[in-house]
């Protein structure tokens, strides 16, 4: 009887007939905005998600990159001058046509290789290509001269004046004639020398980031014993070329990068593949003049714009290079244990380890980016302890095995499990 009923239920709820439409383009568009928003420190996108993503050209559509008009003789208090390349930089607007942005709104601008995109405060804007040529959203930089073609944008309805602000911003972009990078800011000037938009830098910082290398000079690296990696600490580079560890220095930022190799281990690794890789890896580091960070992807580029090395974000490499001890602090209040539990965490290239309050533990792990799998922990040097502490210790070790995601900030490591999030702070 039970089986009959269960079969009946299985057939009934699995039967075709309910069509719930999925909008892939909208999901990609909104997903991209959130990815960028996270990198820029935004919360969840503020605007309502609508089902359809429609690309439109604001105002009168123009095709191709407009020519730079002759500079009028208008006076200007600023004297824009900058030889700095804009490709690979990201910016967040602070002023539009001399006035601060509306409270609670944000406008962003990113320069890629010949294109711009960003967030207008309500809609995401981007570029389009026709036959491989960038049309809407193209930009051209010549010294301190800059022209930006009208961009393509999504068409969500925007409330409370945000749409008006966004419209003024999008209409300002094609009016830009020159730019100036000053300290951490970018100013875009119109034909009369007035500042149309003023930005502060939102370019992702390389400092405190870890990366697993996925290609060197276009070739997949040798992954045995593990893939090469890069970690950017404060003005310091820690890398692994597939055989030896490398120490070096980092100066500049993603737009003007200089990496210098200073030393490292001298292990002998035989085989042509690995020795070629070591040579190419070092050349890629020393030849890089710029880094492009798109989401969780890093590309080191030389002065000619040639990609030298590609990598994907890997917080495990950062944690291993950081070599810090982290203590459970339970700041998220998600679990009934805090600093007094004595639970700590250390991460190296292959294992997580620490103290449970009733002895030490060690467990191997594997990760792809921030998705982790931690194996069952080995209990080391067990100590006699009270039943409460013992129970807590076992609960913690059980939770470790269910960790799905690891999030790293400068002073916090969060192990996310389906049940709770374990929050650790730097000890």
């Amino acid at each position, binding site marked *: 009887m*039970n089986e009959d*009923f*269960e079969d*009946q*239920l*299985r*057939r*009934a*709820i*699995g*039967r075709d*007939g*309910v*069509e*719930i*439409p*999925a*909008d*892939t383009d*909208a*999901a*990609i568009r*909104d*997903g*991209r905005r*959130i*990815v960028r928003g*996270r990198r820029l420190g935004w919360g969840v996108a503020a605007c309502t*998600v609508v*089902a359809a993503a429609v690309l439109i050209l604001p105002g009168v559509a123009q095709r191709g990159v407009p020519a730079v008009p002759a500079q009028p003789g208008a006076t200007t208090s600023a004297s824009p001058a900058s030889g700095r390349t804009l490709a690979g930089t990201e910016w967040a607007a602070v002023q539009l046509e001399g006035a601060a942005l509306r409270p609670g709104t944000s406008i962003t601008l990113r320069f*890629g290789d010949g294109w711009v995109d960003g967030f207008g405060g309500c809609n995401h804007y981007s570029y389009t*290509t026709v036959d491989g040529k960038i049309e809407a959203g193209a930009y051209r930089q010549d010294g301190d001269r800059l022209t930006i073609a009208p961009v393509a944008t999504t068409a969500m309805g925007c409330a409370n004046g945000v749409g008006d602000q966004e419209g003024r911003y999008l209409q300002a972009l094609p009016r830009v004639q020159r730019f100036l990078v000053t300290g951490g800011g970018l100013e875009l000037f119109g034909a009369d020398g007035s500042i149309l938009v003023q930005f502060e830098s939102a370019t992702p910082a390389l400092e405190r980031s870890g990366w697993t290398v996925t290609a060197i000079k276009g070739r997949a690296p040798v992954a045995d014993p593990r893939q090469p990696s890069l970690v950017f600490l404060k003005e310091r580079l820690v890398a692994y070329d597939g055989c030896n560890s490398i120490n070096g220095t980092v100066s500049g930022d993603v737009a003007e990068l200089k990496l210098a190799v200073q030393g490292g281990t001298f292990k002998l690794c035989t085989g042509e593949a690995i020795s070629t890789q070591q040579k190419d890896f070092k050349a890629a580091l020393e030849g890089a003049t710029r880094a492009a960070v*798109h*989401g*969780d*992807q890093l590309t080191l580029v030389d002065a000619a714009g040639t990609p030298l090395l590609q990598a*994907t*974000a890997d917080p495990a490499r950062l944690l291993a290079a950081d070599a810090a001890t982290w203590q459970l602090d339970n700041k998220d209040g998600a679990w009934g244990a805090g600093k007094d539990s004595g639970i700590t965490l250390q991460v190296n290239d292959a294992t997580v380890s620490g103290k449970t309050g009733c002895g030490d533990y060690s467990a191997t792990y594997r990760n*792809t*980016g*921030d*998705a982790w799998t931690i194996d069952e922990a080995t209990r080391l040097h067990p100590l006699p302890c009270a039943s409460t502490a013992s129970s807590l210790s076992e609960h913690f070790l059980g939770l470790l095995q*269910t960790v799905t*995601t690891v999030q790293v900030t400068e002073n916090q490591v969060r192990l996310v*499990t*389906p*049940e709770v999030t374990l929050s650790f702070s730097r000890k």
Partner: protein
Amino acid sequence: MAWGSRRDAEFTAFVADASTTLGRTAWLLTGNPDAAAELLQATLVKTYVAWPKVRPGSAPAYARRIMVNASIDGWRRRRETPGLPEAEPGLPSAEAAFDERERLGRLLADLPLQQRRVIVLRFLHDLSEKAVAEELGLPVGTVKSSTARGLAALRSALVEKGNQ
């Protein structure tokens, strides 16, 4: 090449494969086509954002997990009591009244959320009790009891309807 084009291509293929099942899951969890469409879209956006950490081949399960959790975090907050599933568009009302899936769908919407999630995962996705427990982060015993209670409630409601 536009940024993220590889991610977009993979994600688009995933949506083409998985959206029907995910859509049906959303409908059963929410009991409302509009809310289901919203839940499905939110799930797809979250899955896109998490795409680099989704292991190859595990995207449908990953998205499903996001969906069952989102149905708690979002849907429940917005509406204390889920609405009944609306009659399927295009079906004559008399026929809909006797449609097995429609009738069960309506009864399913009356179950407490946890029982509904368990029933959907057990009987739409054919997951074992252990797999459901892992998916929802619940003890296996809770899954067993939720399944039993959910089935009993459904059976009892069907009997009542049959006697009417």
